[in-house]
């Protein structure tokens, strides 16, 4: 297995507030894993732990890559990006006062990606033609759906092996949520990406996920080994769907 991300027993928080309690999960190459949970349950914190933006107070985050093990809790964010992990942050977090193209170029900031910048830029424009038309436009002046596309395209500019997507549906109209999720699926198929997607929208997420975890109050309450297991579980219904 060329790529495996393992999160083991991770505790993390913000000073007095503890957001994660002994969270464990794993993702192997080629999988699309959904991390499901409503607001405030620790999805973003977990994503940030993987990216090295929040330091866990306990536990381990390891990335196995071509036989080598990397302890992500000891690496800086830019080193993690260099390993081939890329994140689409929640609420998109574009560079609103830079143009679409500049946003994309910044996605290829890491040294490895800088060499392939023209190729990756062409891919991005092929995947999202609307971005090409608007490449001189300021990112902040685009619609929410287009901004989400740009955020995804920007993450792809670093030619990642593992893509983390934090709540792609936030602030989007239902039809755009559907488009975005479909785009992630297409990208995955095309580039052989491994995807970890945090999402509140259960039905959209399970549409493209191979399997999923449910996180409640900073703990993984259910580890669904298949989408069917997620959909049929009573616990899921009571915890998550409210039925």
């Amino acid at each position, binding site marked *: 297995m060329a790529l495996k991300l393992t999160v083991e027993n991770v505790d993390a928080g913000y000073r007095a507030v503890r957001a994660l309690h002994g969270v464990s999960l794993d993702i192997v190459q080629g999988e699309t894993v959904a991390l499901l949970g409503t607001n405030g349950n620790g999805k973003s914190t977990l994503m940030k732990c993987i*990216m090295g*933006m929040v330091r866990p107070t306990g536990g381990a985050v390891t990335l196995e890559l071509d036989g080598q093990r990397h302890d992500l809790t000891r690496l*800086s*964010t*830019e080193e993690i*990006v*260099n390993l081939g992990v*890329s*994140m*689409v*942050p929640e609420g998109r*977090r*574009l*560079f*609103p*006062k*830079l143009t679409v193209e*500049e946003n994309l*170029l*910044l*996605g290829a*900031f*890491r040294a490895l*990606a*800088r060499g392939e910048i023209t190729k990756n830029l062409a891919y991005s424009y092929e995947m999202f033609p609307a971005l090409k038309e608007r490449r001189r*436009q300021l990112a902040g002046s685009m619609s929410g759906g287009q901004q989400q596309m740009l955020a995804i395209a*920007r*993450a792809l*500019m*670093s030619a990642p092996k593992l893509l983390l997507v934090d709540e792609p549906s936030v602030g989007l109209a239902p039809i755009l949520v559907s488009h975005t999720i479909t785009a992630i699926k297409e990208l995955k198929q095309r580039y052989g990406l491994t995807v970890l997607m945090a999402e509140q929208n259960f039905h959209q997420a399970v549409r493209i996920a191979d399997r999923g975890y449910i996180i409640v109050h900073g703990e993984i309450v259910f580890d669904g080994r298949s989408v069917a297991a997620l959909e049929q579980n009573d616990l899921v219904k009571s915890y998550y769907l409210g039925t």
Partner: protein
Amino acid sequence: MRRLASPFGIGAAATVVLAGVLALGGANEYFFFAGYVVLQFVVLATAWNILGGYAGYVNFGTAAFFGIGAYTSVLLFKSLGAPLLVQMAAAAVVTGLLGFGTGLLTLRLRGIFYSIATVAVIFIAETLMINWRYVGGATGLQLLRPAPMLPFETYTRMLFFIMAVVAVLAVAIARYIEISWIGRGLRALRDTEEAAECSGVPTLRLKLLACTISGALMGVAGAPLPMYLSFLEPASSFSLNYSVVALAGAIIGGTAHWLGPVLGAILLASMQQIVTVTISSEMNVLVVGVMLVVFVVAAPDGILGLIRKLRRPRAAAGKP
């Protein structure tokens, strides 16, 4: 070599040659006395803009770097009799290190908190110098200028030429940063620091780099001050005026482009010099304040933004 032949390279070379010709020519001595100050503010505003404009970290500590640069010169001159160029090089090293150090301590603060921390640096530096007898303490120190280097007739003319060279170098460095990947990274972290990190921009390292370069350039601008005045004392060397004019010059000119701080500083510092001579030396502070208010209200993107707006009003309005 092709790079040197670019329009920017030619412009830079022409500026240095022009400054040299002026300094060797017959203009009135006062021209150089005032011109030196204007050029000094070009360096300060350009240096300020590297961190303040590109990265969006508003630094009020310009006076600290400027003053420490000046005091480095005094120390070297008094203890070793070091020549001016050595003083300037040493000032660059000292204030570069100071920039790195203050950056390490303060750059984790954002927005207004960062700005307040930089003001503190001025007071710390000033207090240190007031209590250091060797460099003159609170009363200051008189200095005897050595003879000017040939071919310059007077020391002021020589300083004018040197400051012109420093200004051109500072602008060249700022321009390089602006158009290279460093500038792209700084603009990204100005917009959204978190997203910049997600994209693999080494945000802290870039900020430290900007802080170091910016500090070193401010120090170089201050290094010739003791020789320019033949005198140095703490209150005027660490004057907040340096911080304010550096910042105002960059904002008035426009922070997005290297040309902005140059235009802003020339306009602002020349106005100050003219007002000092024609009206009064107290009025020049008012000039800075009034111009800053006028620009913030009427042209928030500075002179460059104003020019851009006037040049293509229709294109801007027609944008979807």
